């Protein structure tokens, strides 16, 4: 297989404005922080973000005007830091459309994409206003059972996933929880990996069971030490409490958010985590 290594700049330049973009990780954990910062630096616009539960990534992309749509089940910084201020403000101000999902319906949409089918049936959802609000249809069971909600295929144009270890052709190990990352890799038209380190893939041959992502599904591999930051990265570093607290405080108003972005993101973010 061919060598897929490239720079973060070049990899992110291949994410067009308006792309449907799946981001790996969950809430405060193993999100692709460096890639999100690069999207901000490159001034991307009109993105649809797809994720089950997001935090800093979604809030920031909403705050700087990069995201137009959020398809997610939960957006918040958990009890550690509370609500997502810029996301709230952008949705309440009508600048971002919140396509609320039930987490499992994000998974169902990705599954339909992976399986090449137009829709995926999903159990539950009875009694909820979500199916009607989101236009999710019901189908009768042709084998004589009851009705079931079906979720339309959700095909990301691009998935960006941060991993602990990858080889040059895109085989990758994920330490700890995989979240929905493997689903995103399979469902997306294009896959960008950022990796804490690039390793010689020959080492994977002794234990291919431990390789979460098969290289032939990957389009670009970026070496990005500290590339989850300010998210945590299992086995290597925790989420950055101090930075996130400062971010959430700044995010409470547009002016303070933009100052924070200018001072701490448009300058060299990578330098900070390595310092």
């Amino acid at each position, binding site marked *: 297989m061919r060598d897929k290594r490239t720079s973060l700049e070049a990899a992110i330049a291949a994410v067009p404005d308006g792309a449907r973009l799946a981001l790996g990780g969950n809430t405060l954990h193993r999100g692709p922080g460096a890639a999100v910062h690069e999207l901000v630096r490159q001034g991307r616009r009109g993105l649809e973000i797809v994720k089950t539960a997001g935090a800093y990534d979604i809030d920031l992309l909403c705050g700087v005007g990069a995201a137009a749509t959020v398809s997610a089940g939960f957006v918040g910084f958990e009890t550690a830091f509370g609500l997502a201020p810029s996301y709230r403000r952008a*949705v309440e101000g009508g600048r971002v459309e919140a396509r609320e999902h039930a987490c499992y319906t994000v998974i169902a949409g990705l599954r339909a994409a992976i399986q090449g089918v137009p829709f995926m049936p999903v159990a539950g959802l009875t009694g909820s206003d979500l199916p009607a609000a989101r236009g999710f249809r019901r189908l009768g069971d042709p084998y004589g059972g009851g009705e079931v909600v079906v979720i339309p295929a959700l095909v990301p144009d691009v998935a960006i996933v941060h991993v602990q270890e990858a080889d040059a052709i895109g085989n990758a190990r994920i330490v700890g929880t995989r979240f929905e990352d493997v689903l995103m890799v399979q469902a997306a038209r294009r896959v960008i990996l950022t990796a804490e380190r690039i390793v010689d893939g020959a080492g994977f041959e002794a234990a291919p069971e431990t390789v979460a992502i098969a290289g032939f599904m990957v389009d670009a591999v970026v070496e990005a030490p500290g590339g989850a930051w300010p998210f945590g990265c299992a086995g290597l570093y925790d989420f950055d409490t101090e930075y996130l607290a400062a971010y959430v405080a700044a995010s409470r108003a547009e002016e303070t958010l933009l100052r924070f972005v200018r001072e701490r993101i448009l300058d060299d973010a990578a330098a900070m985590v390595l310092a």
Partner: protein
Amino acid sequence: MVVTLARLLGDGETVFHGVASPLPMVATLLAKRLHAPDLVYLSIGGGVDPDPVRLPVSTVDPALLHGTRALVTLTDLFDLAARGRLDVAFLGGVQIDGSGRINMSLIGDPARPKVRLPGGAGSAALMPVARRTILWRTKHDPRTFVERLDFVTAAGNVAHVITPLCLFARREGRLVVESVHPGVDPDALRAATGFPLAVDSGTPVTQAPTAAELGALAQIDSDHVRVSEFERATGGG
């Protein structure tokens, strides 16, 4: 609250919590320590029966993988519930109505909400299919316990709701007070609740934690992670 939650969990049951759920995390570990050693503890991070060295403030934290022998994905856990094999799901709710339905989505007009909330996470999918759902909420006031939700994020098999004031059970589709916590005045409870409640001086009082329960709790949550919830109540699921 956390001790009362723990008492609701039976031995051998399969129990799940999601993001932003410190109280269910502590309660499940406590139940396992006390009376439910064969309880199967599953959380959104995919650990099975973790034995965390320190309790994380994020309930998706890798700390909840310590001591686990198998990893499952969130997808596996939703599937487990969908096929009727999950006994207990812990879910939150920013608004909760008198039939135990929850709103985690928005306040105001759905088309242009006054307040955009975090979203229900897995609750709309889990609540109808988990064998029973336990709701918890660290605030008990009339803005939380409402007659009418602005949006029904999820509805389903709610068995109990725990608050700082009382324990609700759901009977014939309505929340009723199962017990009032020690020292809570029935009138104050009624005033704090936006839907009608049958509660008086004859209502049972929640059994206070025993010394054994408090001792186990002190060991499990020596950092008082459970307290973080009372500072910032964003719900969870």
